[in-house]
C-alpha cells in the first residue's frame, strides 16, 4: 500500500495539466467548425447555400416536392375524403402538368383540409406529426403566409411540444424545447417549428 499525503496528491494532480490536445488537430478543428456557418440558423428551410440556390432556381420543383409530401401526409392521416373532388387530384403525378398557380392553389386547399381535420381530430400518430412538421418547414413562402398554413403550423407545433414533453430529452434539447414554448406563447409558430425540428434532428 502506497502512502500519499494530500499535498503530494495535489502536486501530482498539477502534473495532469500537461495533458493537452495535439496542436495541429486543435487548429484544424477550429478552422473546420468556424467554416460551417449554415448549419443551424435555418435548419429545415436552408441547410446550406446550395439549398438556398436550389430554392431560388427551382420554385416549381419545390412546390411539387411539397405537394407530394403533403399528399403523402394526407394519406397518413387518412384524409383523402376531405379534399373536394375535382380540386385535388388523387395522383400526385398529374401535378407535374399543372401551372404553378394551380399547384399552389391545390396545396392551399390541401392545407385547409388538413387543418380542419386536425382541428376536429387532434389526436394523431406521433410519427405522422413528425412527417408533417418536416413538410411544413419546407412549405413555399406564399403558401406559408396564409392563415390556414399558420393554423396548421400552430396545431403541429402544439402537438409536437406536447409529445416532446413526454419524452426524455438531453439538457440541451430541453433548453431548445423551452425556447420553442416561449416562441409559441409569442405566437411565432414558424420559429417554434424550426426549434422543434432541431430537437428531432
Amino acid at each position, binding site marked *: *500500500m*502506497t*502512502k*500519499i499525503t*494530500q499535498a503530494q*496528491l*495535489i502536486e*501530482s*494532480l*498539477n*502534473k*495532469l*495539466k*500537461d*495533458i*493537452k*490536445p*495535439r496542436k495541429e*488537430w*486543435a487548429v484544424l*478543428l*477550429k478552422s473546420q*467548425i*468556424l467554416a*460551417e*456557418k449554415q*448549419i*443551424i*440558423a435555418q435548419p429545415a428551410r436552408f441547410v446550406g447555400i446550395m439549398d438556398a440556390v436550389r430554392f431560388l432556381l427551382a420554385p416549381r420543383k419545390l412546390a411539387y416536392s411539397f405537394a407530394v409530401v403533403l399528399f403523402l401526409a394526407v394519406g397518413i392521416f387518412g384524409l383523402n375524403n376531405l379534399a373536394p373532388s375535382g380540386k385535388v387530384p388523387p395522383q400526385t403525378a398529374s401535378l407535374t402538368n399543372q401551372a404553378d398557380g394551380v399547384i399552389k392553389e391545390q396545396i392551399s386547399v390541401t392545407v385547409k383540409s388538413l387543418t380542419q381535420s386536425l382541428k376536429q381530430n387532434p389526436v394523431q400518430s406521433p410519427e405522422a406529426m413528425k412527417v408533417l412538421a418536416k413538410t411544413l418547414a419546407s412549405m413555399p413562402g406564399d403558401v406559408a403566409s396564409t392563415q390556414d398554413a399558420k393554423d396548421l403550423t400552430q396545431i403541429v407545433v402544439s402537438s409536437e411540444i406536447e409529445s416532446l414533453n413526454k419524452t426524455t430529452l*438531453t*439538457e*440541451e434539447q430541453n*433548453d431548445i424545447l423551452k*425556447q420553442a414554448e*416561449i*416562441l409559441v406563447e409569442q405566437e411565432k409558430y414558424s420559429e417554434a417549428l424550426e426549434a422543434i425540428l432541431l430537437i428531432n434532428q
Partner: protein
Amino acid sequence: MDSLNEQFSQIYDQYIDKIYRFVYLKVNSQETAEDITSKVFTKGWEKFRIQNSEFRIQNNGAFLYQIARNAVVDHYRASGRAKVVSVDASPEIVDPGTDAHDKAILSADISNLKNSIQKLKPEYQDVIVWHYLDDMPISNIAELLDKPAGTVRVMLHRGIKDLKDIIQES
C-alpha cells in the same frame, strides 16, 4: 471574419485545452477524446450562433463544460454502458482500453493517476479537475453546478479523500 466568428474563435482558444483535458480524463483514448471534444465545440458553435433575446449564453465555460459532460454520458450510452444514466447519478465511468500511443504520451505516474481519477464518481472527477487543474474557484464551480459553495467544498474534500484511498489501495 465576422464578429460571431471572432468571438467564438477566442472562446475556442480559451477552452480547447481545458475541455479536451476534461474529456480525456473521463475516457481512455486520445481518439475518443478528440472525437468528443470536436462534438462539444461543434455543438457549442451551433448554439452560440443562435443566441437571441430569449436565449443567451451567460457563462461560456459553464456552457461548454455542460455540453462536454452530456457528450461524455452520450458516449458511454452509445458504447453500451447502460449503467451510466446521468452525470450526477452514475457511480463510475471507466473506459477499459488505454492504447499504446496514449500510454507512451503519459508518464507512468500520470497514467496511474488518470486511471485512479476515472474510478471516482463523475461528480467528484469534475470538481477535482475544475478546481485543481483548471484553477477554478469554488464559487465558480458552485455556479456551474448550481449548488451551494459549501456543497462543492464537501464534494471536493470527499473526492480528494476517495482519490487518496484509491491510489493507496492500488
